[in-house]
């Protein structure tokens, strides 16, 4: 007997579906921001009007001009060019973290949920231990040990975020595993690997994608913070986090644009990813 039989009349279902089907402007705006950021990350160097690394100290914190729309930074470099070129490392870092976390997290989650028992207990307690380490601290530690750059913080953040991802996905995998259609496949004699790859994971995909987009935002903020601390991407490379750090004295001196422009880019992309993640998840749930 269906639990929700009282409400699950056909009329009610359609009524609800009708409310959820509208394409929201928020979703479109988020997707637009992400597409734009991705395009710039790929084509940035081609779009940049000036050499982003060429300093001209005579142009120290010169405000916007018609030729230089966002003006110059602390070393007299064109801010717009640096933003466009810096998009690549700023996006690549979080992307790497996200890919690694999602792969590792899904694998651990599905294994734990499917096998249960000792294996689940082992994976779950391992993840609990990792939980104890704050991501940014781990990344600072990794940078200190392995040297500054993009690689060490990316690896450290991947390790630090995997427990969060794995925990959420394990819950979802457990719920999915308890569905009768999975039992039906087991009774048919399908192998565990086939069931997980062809049924269990595809049915969690909306959650995985939602997690990934949210994680991308977090990773971007953290990596920017690490760059800001001087432990991530090294100057003079163009990177949004580095740009905020390099130009912070400009904020006090009345030239906020260089630092702010980079900060605004980060905030926009992070918000766009978060909103997209949330909407994608809601849609995925509604479609079931």
């Amino acid at each position, binding site marked *: *007997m*269906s639990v929700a039989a009282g409400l699950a009349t056909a009329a009610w279902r359609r009524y609800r579906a009708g409310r959820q089907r509208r394409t929201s402007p928020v979703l479109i705006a988020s997707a637009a921001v992400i597409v734009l950021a991705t395009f710039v990350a790929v084509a940035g160097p081609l779009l940049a009007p000036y050499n982003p690394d060429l300093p001209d100290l005579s142009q120290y914190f010169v405000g916007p001009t018609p030729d230089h729309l966002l003006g110059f930074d602390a070393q007299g470099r064109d801010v717009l060019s640096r933003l466009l070129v810096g998009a690549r490392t700023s996006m690549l870092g979080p992307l790497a973290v996200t890919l690694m976390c999602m792969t590792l997290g899904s694998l651990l989650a599905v294994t734990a949920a499917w096998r249960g028992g000792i294996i689940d207990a082992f994976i779950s307690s391992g993840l609990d231990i990792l939980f104890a380490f704050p991501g940014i601290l781990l990344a600072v530690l990794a940078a200190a040990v392995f040297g500054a750059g993009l690689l060490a913080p990316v690896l450290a953040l991947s390790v630090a975020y995997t427990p969060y991802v794995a925990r959420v996905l394990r819950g979802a995998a457990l719920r999915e595993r308890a*569905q*009768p*259609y999975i*039992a*039906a496949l*087991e*009774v*048919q*004699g*399908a*192998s565990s690997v086939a069931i997980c790859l*062809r*049924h269990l994971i*595809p*049915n969690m995909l909306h959650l995985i994608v939602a997690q990934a987009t949210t994680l991308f935002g977090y990773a971007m903020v953290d990596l920017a913070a690490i760059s800001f601390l001087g432990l991530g991407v090294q100057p003079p490379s163009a990177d949004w986090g580095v740009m905020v750090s390099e130009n912070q004295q400009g904020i006090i001196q009345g030239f906020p644009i260089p630092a702010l422009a980079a900060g605004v880019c980060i905030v926009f992309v992070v918000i766009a990813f978060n909103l997209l993640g949330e909407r994608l998840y809601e849609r995925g749930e509604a*479609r*079931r």
Partner: protein
Amino acid sequence: MPEPVLEVEGLRKEFGPRLAVDDVGFTIPQGGSLAIVGESGSGKTTVAKMIVGLERPTGGTIRACGRDRSTPARSTRERRRRGREVQIVFQDPYTSLDPRQTMEEAIDEVLRMHQGWQPKRRMERVRELSDMVGLDARQARALPRSLSGGQRQRVAIARALAAEPRVLILDESVAALDVSIQAQVLNLLADIRDETAISFVVISHDLAVVRQLTEQIVVMWRGRLVERGQTADVLDHPQADYTKLLRASVPKPGWKPQRRPAVATG
């Protein structure tokens, strides 16, 4: 006496300290059908799960088509062979299908697993099966969410039949359906029996449904069998106290609901 397709003997299941199934046994001859009735917690669904291998018995034996299946299958081949012996249709049509798979895809997957057929042959079989359960080509290509409960249950039945099992377990399979749809599915099941000589095990709390589908019946109460016999006999002349109570609790015109008298162990 025809060869039994399913033999269950001394079946027992413990969940921690709780004894869910205790010394349950029955046999089903080829083409025969058996009802297991009882209330929630009586252990009837646990028995079904043990027969299809979703739960491991604590004790006792289960044999289907003469082969033991009381321990987990060791190989993929063995697992698939068991899949061709016994299949199951669950209660809830809304969760027993993969929401991302159409009926065609679901049945094709099963056929690929069990038969070494070419795609064309498989498609023919998909069409045969959808005809058999009364779904048209458009419905066979639709995702579960655009099908009604009754249509989904037909898909689940077709999927179970795709493996050409000797025994089909119906675990409350019509309980969630509307009355008018329930009658259609019950008629469909009767037709399938006439056409395929398949055996049914009907797990149900609905005595009218049980009477419609089965010849033999066992009544479970708190993990044990309290009565067994011909379905019509047991329903017309129940012997065990519990069966009598069950029988008296079925509403019908002129029925007066009764407070539950204490039930002595049957």
